[in-house]
Each structure stands twice: as structure tokens, then as C-alpha cells.
């Protein structure tokens, strides 16, 4: 299993050819109280950089981009039902969707966990 991060504050956990995607703890903290989440349905194909999910806090609305391309295998109904899960467990149960990796080469160039945690300190 490997964990990657993007500069848009998404995380990608890769197990075999499946990637689980969510937003980082830093991102949820910046957003504040999350009151709405919309996740993609299974079967939808998303390409890298495309809007795949929506997350809204009391004050702001954000798109969650697909950090890699692939076919969505599952949207997390738990965060759609209880968006506060993204605040309480952003990098665990608060994941947004899973997809079947189309091009593992797209993972190259993403940050590993250490680089990401160091990078956000500079923001």
C-alpha cells in the first residue's frame, strides 16, 4: 500500500490497482465545518484533473478533483449521509470515492506523505 498527496490537498491510497481518494486533514481544517458532500456513483469514468466530488463547509464550496484517471468503483455513502465525517476522520472513514487505476504512471510526481506534511508547513 502506498499513500500519495496532491497540491490540491487530496490523498490517494493505492492498494493493487484500486485507489481510495479523500481530502487531507489540512484541507478539512481550512474548510471548517463541512455540511455537504457529493460523491460520484460507481461506474462513472473520471480523468485526471476532472471534478469528481463536491465538498461544502459553512463558508465555502469546493470541487474535489480526480487526482488520477479511472473508473469509479464506489462513492462513500457514509460521507454523503454524514458530511461531518470528513472533519472527524478526513484521512480514514471520511474518504470520498474509490476508483480502478487506469494509468499507474499518473502517480509519478505526486508527493509522498512526508513531503506533503513538510510542504503544507510552508503554506
Amino acid at each position, binding site marked *: 500500500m502506498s499513500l500519495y498527496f496532491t497540491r*490540491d*490537498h*487530496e490523498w490517494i491510497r493505492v492498494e493493487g490497482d484500486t485507489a481510495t481518494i479523500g*481530502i487531507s486533514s489540512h*484541507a478539512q481544517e481550512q474548510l*471548517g*465545518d463541512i*455540511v*455537504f458532500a*457529493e460523491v460520484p456513483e460507481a461506474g462513472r469514468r473520471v480523468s485526471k484533473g476532472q*471534478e469528481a466530488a*463536491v*465538498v*461544502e463547509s*459553512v*463558508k*465555502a*464550496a*469546493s*470541487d*474535489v*478533483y480526480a487526482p488520477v484517471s479511472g473508473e469509479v468503483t464506489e462513492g462513500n455513502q457514509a460521507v454523503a449521509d454524514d*458530511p461531518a465525517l470528513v472533519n472527524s476522520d478526513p484521512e480514514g472513514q471520511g474518504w470520498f470515492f474509490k476508483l480502478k487505476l487506469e494509468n499507474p504512471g499518473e502517480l509519478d510526481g505526486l508527493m509522498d506523505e512526508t513531503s506533503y506534511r513538510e510542504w503544507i508547513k510552508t503554506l
Partner: protein
Amino acid sequence: MSREVHSGPTDETQARGTPYSGDPQGGDGTVPQQLDKLALDSWHRSKGARMVPFAGYEMPVQYEGIIAEHLWTRENAGLFDVSHMGQLFIHGRAVDAALERFMPGDFRDAKDMKPKYSLLLNEEGGIIDDLMATRRGEDFYVVVNGATKYGDIDYMQRRLPGEIIIDHVRSQALLALQGPKAAEVLDAAIPGIAQLGFMEAGPFRAFGHPLWISRSGYTGEDGFEISIPSMAAQDLADWLDADERVKPIGLGARDSLRLEAGLPLYGHDLDDRTTPVMAGLNFAINKRRRAEGGFAGAMRIIAELENGPPQLRVGFEVDGRQPVREGALVLDGEGNEVGKITSGGFSPSLQRPIAMGYVASHVAETGTALKLEQRGKLFEARVTAMPFVPHRYHRKGAA
């Protein structure tokens, strides 16, 4: 993840250097101005505040979180620093009659120490600002919005006779204590405070300093607004914060509280193209003034009172869970644009999205089903009476 900010004055549009639309000095492409510091700046930071630029100041937008702060204020007492607002003393011969030139309230017969909500109007009847004005003996004490204060002073100075002076009091902080426990908290330090009724004010003393306190606020709850010398503000803030019934509350919750209370926010729900009648603020247009006229924009405003305004400010209940925010369009059953959302968000008290905006008068009736369009998506909504959450003001004579 991208960030699209849709909502009000407390959001990070300012953090990105874009002054919000209520700032007459602002607008797209302006260079962010040098920010002023509140007297309580370091106090807020020591309480864990996240500070954002707002109305020319670095202001606390939240401490522990907007929803928790919001709910705390509805159940206990919240302490707000609103020192960015402009505190003015206006004085001189016949100041009351002079103020009536550009405000539609009755200032000539205004009773001492009774704050009045009023509106600064332009010649077309549009709203330049909304404010509170209180007669204090021969003077009027006027509190205006922070983002508009310099424009307001300039506008009034150009229209007031030379013998009327506006003093902008920069040495006073303004703190608000709001919520059902505000009176019992304050009464311990300032005996007699509980005797004030809603929209009454007076001079008090505490911590060796003179205070001016009015029983008023902008949350829909009972509460007080306290003008205090800046040098003494921290003593009062510390004393209040030490009370377990009190927590500091940021601008984020201030915005969601006033939205639930159906109160319009200048620069969003009110602007210089909105008349008091369109905004549903007819209570601020005094009976004698309606009959006599003689205030800026009187012709248009009196005509709108008689014939009805072209648009009206209304509330919306929005179906689903997704917030619909400022800028969303209002559509009728045929898909025609009939209005615009001017404030909207998630109501922490009701746990659902609510909004306010302007619609053509023929679709303004409570219960009318309309659609809202935001980023290409349609939402079902119904016109609803405001406030969304009942006011709980402390009116004398009421139980």
C-alpha cells in the same frame, strides 16, 4: 481540491485580497489595503482565532468552529468584537432635523437613549448603509457598518450644514454579548443592566471605565452592545471570557446567526440600488415622514409604499442539504429569471440550507414554489416568512 467561495463577508474572498461588494472603496482589481488591527487583536489570537481581512481590519472569523460557536450563542452567551464598525457622534444646532434629510426615521421626536434602526439614503432612495442612531442629549450616537464607514461620513458631511459636526470616535472598542444568558452574565458586573429593555440604551460604569450599553444586536437573540474605551476592552473581554457561560464568537457565526434571524447584511442583501421598501424595511420609515416626505429618495420611496415595489426581499427554504449561496439565480416554473439570492448558507440551528434574496413582487408571496440555479444545478425552494429562527428579544412588558 479547488476552492470556490460563494458566501458572505466573513469568507476568504478577503483573504485573497478581493474586497467584498459592500466595500465602496473595493471592487475587482484593487490592491488590498493596509489592514488595521483591533485593540483586542492579540487577545483574539490567544483564544485561537483564525484571523481574516474584513472591512479593512484583521478580524476573527472563527475560534473553535462556526457551527459550535453559532449553537453556543443560541443557548448561552457569545462575545463578539465588532470594533470595526464606525462609532460616530453627530452634534450641532438642530442636528435632529438635519439627519432627517437623508434618513427616513423620526429624529425630531426621537426619545433620549432609545436606539433606532435607520437607513442612510441616496437621492434615488437607494440604501448607502444601515445603522443605529441614538439620541444622547443634544447629540446623536450613530453606529455604522465597518466597510462603509468612511463613505458614510463623507456622504453625510457633504450634506449636513456647516454647523453640524461628525466626530468619528476611534478610541472606543465595540463588543457585543449575545444570547439568552447575556443579561444574567452582564448583570453581575454591571448592576442595573437587566433593567434595560430591547432597544434601550444608557451610560454605565464597570472596571473603573464609562461604558455605553444598548440592549440590541444582530443575532436575533437578547443581548447587548457595549462601547468601551479601547484601553479597557481587554479587561472586559477577560472578565466575560472567564465566565463559563461565555465564549468568543467569530464573524462566521455572526453571519449564520443573522441569516437565521432574517436580518439583511449591507453589501449583500442591501446596496445603493435597493430601497427600504424593496428590502422590507418599511418599519424604518416613520409615519410622519411618509406623510411629509423631505428625505433623500422620498418620492420614489413613498410611491413604492403606495403602489408596491418592483421586487421584494424574501426568505427561502431550500430542499436537500446543499447550501445555495449569494449569486444563485431564482427561476419561476417556466425557467424565467425572477430574482437573485443575496445571502444563503447552511442553518446550524435548523440543520438545513436557508437563503434570502430578491424576487419580482408577483412571486414574492409566502409559499410560492421557485427554483434556484447555482453552478448549473437546480434546487427546489419555497418562499418563506422570515425570521427562519424566531427572535428572542427582551421586550419590556412581554413575559
